[in-house]
């Protein structure tokens, strides 16, 4: 008999190798025993192996995993495996020894074929998403036209509910953020302009920047974070709870029922909130102008009135209308993409905000080019 650090070896009369476990095959010794077992098996390559448990009181899950590795090694190398003196308390676990033929659970397969297949699946998924988005926009267009044709069937109550939720309830945060942005911008500009005695131009800069660019964009970012995510979460949860399926089998048009009121509400309140944001930003500028630049309220307002044209104001409002529609659409689309499970709703909600902000930036760039081309 030879004794390795954890395994005692011997031979049967037929010439088969015997492993007597000197240490119990458990969480504390499994690693040591496997290293010994593998070394001995690789060196000796016996025709048969007998695992003797005579000195082993119990075997736990780590021990079973060890036996599975030994069994797999023996299977791969044509070694006949036998078991002797199994402790009765371990019989429950032992039935699983020879069921572990598959790859270890949770191990990622990284063969080249799998990588190519994964890449293909990724592109197919993206293509499917684009196709779903086109289908969704088509459904929305049909439903929107049908709603505009038949006002009696339009869900007014829901639209006003969402207008209140996304518009009236968002007024404090929109006001505060825009006021502070106006304040900070005016203060930063004042430091520079004061050197040239051009204090009054703070009003010009602020009015133009806010009404043409910052007002619509900041309002849209707030809407994406506040309302786009809420739409995705609401519709996603409805999908998880089978409410969307229930509406479908009752014969409801999901786009008409769930999407249209939200999109129309946001399209309605987007420009209004932008108008509020512009006013709040200018108000912030006035505060800095009066306190730090020796300007009067009337001179500031007069300067704003002189520099701003209706085109400036309405181009900003037009932008905010488009931004609001995009945010609502992407929020609803992501919600409808949710699958079973709370994690899916979370993912789609995050995606609604990220996609919403991304679309705002893209649309803003498109508007900038268009305004430049058409000299607006």
């Amino acid at each position, binding site marked *: 008999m030879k004794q390795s650090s954890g395994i005692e070896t011997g031979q049967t009369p037929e010439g088969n190798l015997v492993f007597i476990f000197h240490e119990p095959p458990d969480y504390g010794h499994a690693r040591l025993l496997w290293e010994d077992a593998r070394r001995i098996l690789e060196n000796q390559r016996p025709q048969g192996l007998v695992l003797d448990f005579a000195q082993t009181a119990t075997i736990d899950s780590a021990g079973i995993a060890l036996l599975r590795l030994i069994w797999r090694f023996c299977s791969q190398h044509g070694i006949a495996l036998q078991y002797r003196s*199994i402790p009765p308390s371990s019989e429950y676990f032992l*039935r*699983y020894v020879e069921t572990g033929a598959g790859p270890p659970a949770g191990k990622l397969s990284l063969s080249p074929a799998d990588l190519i297949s994964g890449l293909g699946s990724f592109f197919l998924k993206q293509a499917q998403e684009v196709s779903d988005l086109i289908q969704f926009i088509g459904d929305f267009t049909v439903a929107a036209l049908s709603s505009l044709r038949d006002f009696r069937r339009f869900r007014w109550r829901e639209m006003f509910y969402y207008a209140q939720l996304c518009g009236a309830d968002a007024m404090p945060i929109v006001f505060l953020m825009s006021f502070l942005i106006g304040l900070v911008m005016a203060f930063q500009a004042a430091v520079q302009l004061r050197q040239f005695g051009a204090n009054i131009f703070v009003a010009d800069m602020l009015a133009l920047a806010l009404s043409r660019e910052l007002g619509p964009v900041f309002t849209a970012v707030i809407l994406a974070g506040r309302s786009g995510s809420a739409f995705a979460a609401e519709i996603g*949860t*409805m999908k998880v*709870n*089978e*409410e969307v399926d*229930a509406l479908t089998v*009752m014969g409801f048009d999901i786009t008409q029922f769930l999407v249209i009121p939200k999109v129309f509400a946001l399209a309605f309140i987007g420009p209004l909130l932008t108008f509020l944001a512009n006013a709040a930003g200018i108000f912030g500028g006035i505060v800095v102008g009066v306190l730090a630049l020796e300007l009067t309220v009337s001179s500031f307002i007069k300067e704003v009135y002189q520099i701003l044209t209706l085109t400036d104001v309405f181009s900003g409002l037009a932008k905010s209308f488009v931004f609001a529609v995009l945010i609502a659409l992407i929020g609803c689309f992501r919600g409808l993409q949710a699958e079973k499970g709370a994690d899916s709703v979370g993912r789609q909600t995050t995606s609604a905000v990220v996609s919403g902000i991304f679309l705002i930036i893209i649309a803003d760039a498109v508007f900038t080019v268009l305004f430049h081309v058409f000299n607006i």
Partner: protein
Amino acid sequence: MKSSAKENTSPGEAIRVQDVSLGYGEEPILQNLDFCVYSGEIVTILGGSGCGKSTLLKGLVGLLPPAKGHISVGGMEISGKDPKSALMAIRRRIGVLFQSGALIGSLTLGENVALPIEEFTSLPRDLIDDIVRLKLEQVRLADYARYMPAELSGGMKKRAGLARALVLDPEILFCDEPSAGLDPVTSAEMDELLMELNHSLGITMVVVTHELPSIEAISDRCIMLDREAHGIIAIGTPASLKAESTDPRVQAFFHRQARDKVGESLNRFTD
């Protein structure tokens, strides 16, 4: 008239499924399904977890188009190339009770039940309110019309879902696990309610369940699915399946016997 909306069941047949395969990906969960449901009977679809019961139900109500084959419900084929018109027509004639009740969380119970009437009829408000009250009485929830779904227990949500499914007097009612997760008394009440509706109104019912007491209480016939067979392994009355079927999977299901495969390998260690 489009071919997709043609009459496609024999007299007495409420639902006909011919050579249907259903699934979500490339590999169908269910293959080569062939069965029919006759008018006025209660058919339960049963089988172990993951065998495709709910998938089949989704196929029957048009939420999941079949990969192949034909499904006709109420005489209309809903699995053609353009099933939209047939589906719209049939959806007014069927009711579906989902596993969780699937009530719209932002509406009261009364508003939930009134939803299909408001959408598909032009009845005046007072008449709608009275129909809602009647339906809630039928499911013994008359006092809860103003409650929000979140304020109700699981059993009450299911009963409210049933009231909504029944509100347009459907010819066929589909129920997904109506008694799952309910205590034995509430579960028995739900079974009684379904039988009462079937007997008194003649509503054809397709009920997905794996609750043995419910199956034995309400079924006229059972359709048993099996995950490994990817389809139907037995059709018959619960009594005949339990007593006469020679299929070990059917016997294991009706006699609540475990199918222990790994246990077989134990023999070589314990001998």
